[in-house]
């Protein structure tokens, strides 16, 4: 299945939504009140859930229209967005090892995506050999 361009676009949108969702969750837990009313009025948590849910639906739809080897690495973009959001909105200390770690994760997810594409040479040999 050829990956359609709009699937790539959708996954990119999904990554922004997922990162935003995690930011909202973090904000929600920073203002966390453990009570029934506290949870109902924690608008950060509620909006985080909605944003996450929408992102997941978009992702499921996009996966139907594209190959994992292409779409998987794009999903790893959320870690970059979350680092940026954490640094600029939450003013967290983002150190060089953390940035390098996220780069490694990106490479790792890309590798797994590519690995999911590979056909086993043994299978092909059996087909040809008859």
């Amino acid at each position: 299945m050829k990956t359609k361009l709009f699937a790539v676009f959708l996954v990119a949108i999904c990554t922004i939504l997922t990162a935003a969702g995690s930011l909202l969750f973090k904000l929600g837990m920073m203002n966390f009140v453990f009570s029934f009313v506290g949870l109902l009025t924690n608008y950060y948590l509620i909006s985080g859930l909605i944003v996450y849910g929408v992102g997941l639906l978009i992702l499921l739809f996009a996966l139907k229209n594209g190959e994992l080897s292409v779409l998987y690495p794009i999903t790893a973009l959320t870690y970059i967005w979350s680092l940026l959001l954490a640094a600029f909105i939450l003013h967290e200390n983002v150190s060089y090892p953390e940035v390098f770690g996220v780069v490694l994760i990106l490479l790792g997810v890309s590798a797994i995506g590519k690995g999911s594409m590979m056909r086993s040479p043994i299978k092909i040999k059996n087909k040809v050999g008859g």
Partner: protein
Amino acid sequence: METQLWAIGLAVVASVFTAFGSFFMKLTSDKTKDVKTFFLNGKLYIGALLYAVATIVGLIAYLGGDLSIIYPVCALSYVWICLLSVKYLKEEMNKWKWMGIAAILAGVFLIGLGI
């Protein structure tokens, strides 16, 4: 706030639940022919429940750590999903997947070192 070790531990646990949740979602979508089979499939609800548990555990983790540290830990779910697919879905391991797993583990380790 300095990130606590227990928060990272919870994030790891959350990544495991996420992976199993995705696994059941994949099982569900494999058997889905139309809307009816989708919603009647018990595995859908198991997957949703696993995702819910993953979310709750992850939220508790946020109580004890920075977003920039806790969130990347959930990338471990890619590792678990890969291993689950090989063990239960008869997918095959290859050197790309091994390298990918190693890179993600190294990346999460580096991020964990940051605390």
